[in-house]
């Protein structure tokens, strides 16, 4: 087991290295580059730009810059923001909580709702409910998240006035209820796509479990339907879902970026867009790395959890 965990950990590190290289290449090979913002200011001569480049070390070969950046990153120095001179890691940290809160809530909603729909679809296979949910989930997968957010704001904030249209809390009101009121709409909007994905996979997974011998044995023992469902079917069909939760992370994170924009939620997505607007390269790079790290950590955690539940996996 330990060997499996260590080898998965090593793979993740290797992947992170490739990810960092791709991210670095993407940002630095793009025309313009980090210096393009200086070229825009009036009265700036090429000579001055070259000077800045030399000061910031941007005139060195890209590969040297990469290893320099990597070295600093490994010891926790992710550079400083071009915008306000704050350390990148600090800037990201101050936006991390809001994003994790949004993603966590959305994922809880989608797991609960999606699994329930999936199990019922599987139990009543080819019923009207099953068919309706199949179609509904495919439509849900096709709705642009930000548009769904706009429609939700139009209905629940503008017309009904039940919920606030944006932000994380009302200034001066730090109560939990206030946070909840602001959280519920963006979380539900973000959860929509995931509910669809979860219900599909849960349906397939439940169908696989239902047809296995131990379920037949449990029924043959004379256990009640309810007991078989909760003790034998649900638990076992949830195991592959742990892996799915890890694989879904990039999608949820990407969705969070868009949702945060629509609901002016002060998380990493908003920070990312703001930083792009300011050509704040160190923060953009830091956020690319942070999001990839979140994804890799999520996948690693999911794989380890599955291996702990089902030790056969570690032996393969």
């Amino acid at each position, binding site marked *: 087991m330990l060997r499996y965990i260590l080898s998965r950990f090593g793979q993740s590190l290797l*992947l992170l290295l*490739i990810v960092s290289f791709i991210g670095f290449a993407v940002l630095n090979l793009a025309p313009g580059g980090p210096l393009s913002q200086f070229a825009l200011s009036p009265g700036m001569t090429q000579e001055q730009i070259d000077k800045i480049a030399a000061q910031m070390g941007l005139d060195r070969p890209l590969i040297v810059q990469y290893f320099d950046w990597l070295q600093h990153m490994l010891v926790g120095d992710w550079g400083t923001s071009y915008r306000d001179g704050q350390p990148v890691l600090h800037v990201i940290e101050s936006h991390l909580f809001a994003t994790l809160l949004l993603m966590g809530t959305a994922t809880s909603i989608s797991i609960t709702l999606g699994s329930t729909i999936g199990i019922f679809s599987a139990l009543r296979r080819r019923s009207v409910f099953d068919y309706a949910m199949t179609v509904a989930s495919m439509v849900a997968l096709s709705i642009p998240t*930000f548009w769904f957010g*706009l429609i939700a704001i139009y209905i629940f904030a503008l017309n009904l006035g039940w919920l606030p249209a944006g932000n994380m809390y009302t200034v001066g009101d730090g109560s939990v209820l206030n946070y909840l009121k602001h959280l519920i709409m963006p979380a539900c909007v973000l959860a929509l796509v995931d509910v669809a994905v979860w219900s599909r996979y849960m349906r397939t997974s439940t169908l696989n479990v239902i047809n296995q011998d131990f379920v037949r044995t449990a029924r043959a023992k004379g256990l009640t339907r309810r007991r078989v469902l909760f003790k034998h079917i649900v638990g076992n069909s949830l195991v592959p879902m742990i892996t799915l939760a890890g694989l879904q992370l990039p999608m949820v994170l*990407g969705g969070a970026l868009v949702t945060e924009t629509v609901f002016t939620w002060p998380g990493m997505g908003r920070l990312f867009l703001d930083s792009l607007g300011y050509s704040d390269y160190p923060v953009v790079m830091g956020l690319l790395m942070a999001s990839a790290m979140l994804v890799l950590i999520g996948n690693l955690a999911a794989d380890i959890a599955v291996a702990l539940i089902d030790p056969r996996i570690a032996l393969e």
Partner: protein
Amino acid sequence: MTAATTTPPVRQPFIKSRALRRFLSHKLAMIGLFMVLGLTFACFVGPYLLPYDELYIDLRARFAPPGTGGHIFGTDPLGRDLAARLFHAGQISMAVGFAVMVIATTVGSVVGVVSGYYGGKISAVLMRVVDAFLSFPSVFLLLALAAFIQPGPVMIAVIISATSWMEVARIVEAEVKSLRNQDFVQAAHMLGLSGRWIMFRELLPNAIGPIIVAASLTVARAILLEAYISFLGYGIQPPLPSWGNLLNGAQQYLGSAPWLAIVPGLAITIAVTGFNFIGDGLRDAFDSRAQGQ
């Protein structure tokens, strides 16, 4: 004499390909096809039937609600006809979708077939790159790319492809790996055919089913991604309309002119749903094993 030896004619089905027949009898796929064809027709023929040009500005008719003054979907903050803009936007969004399908499917297939055929170190390296690309949330990577390039429809299609080829690569790799040891490939080896011939003339045609399925889903994904980045202001730039950038300014007029948000979003949803339905139908058509589920 000859008449006695002829066998009684077997009734040939009108459409020979079994996959095509299965696809045509797939209800959801047909609905999807109808949605996509209808929308394509509207986008390419619609502009000629409308009384207004998509760039005609009528400041007296700003924020006209749908149905008034010959504006079936109303007008935008400059008094331009939303229907005309929507149809033109559709041409661009769908063109981007198809361009991405072609580029991403080609790149993905080549990476997949090379990786699956050679295996070993080449496969390990290529598949790690695929994994690495999949570790980024694609919207993040896409925005980072889009922010620093000159955004035109062609570049947008290229960068969306850059974040969409990985799934095809994975699918093709898995398919090729399972085909690699079959008799017809061994036979091709024995004939002394080159690796390139075997990969592109023997293996790839045999993996065409999953590739077509992935391609149809890629169109759906590309239209969505274009909408995301254009909505955020980094995609296709006005005055060139796209479904995403029509929604770009819609949020601030949500209270006064909700149709500006509702109409383009519906168009996106219909198009993407259509392609997803078609993809689902194709999957069932090519994969007879899935029939039982």
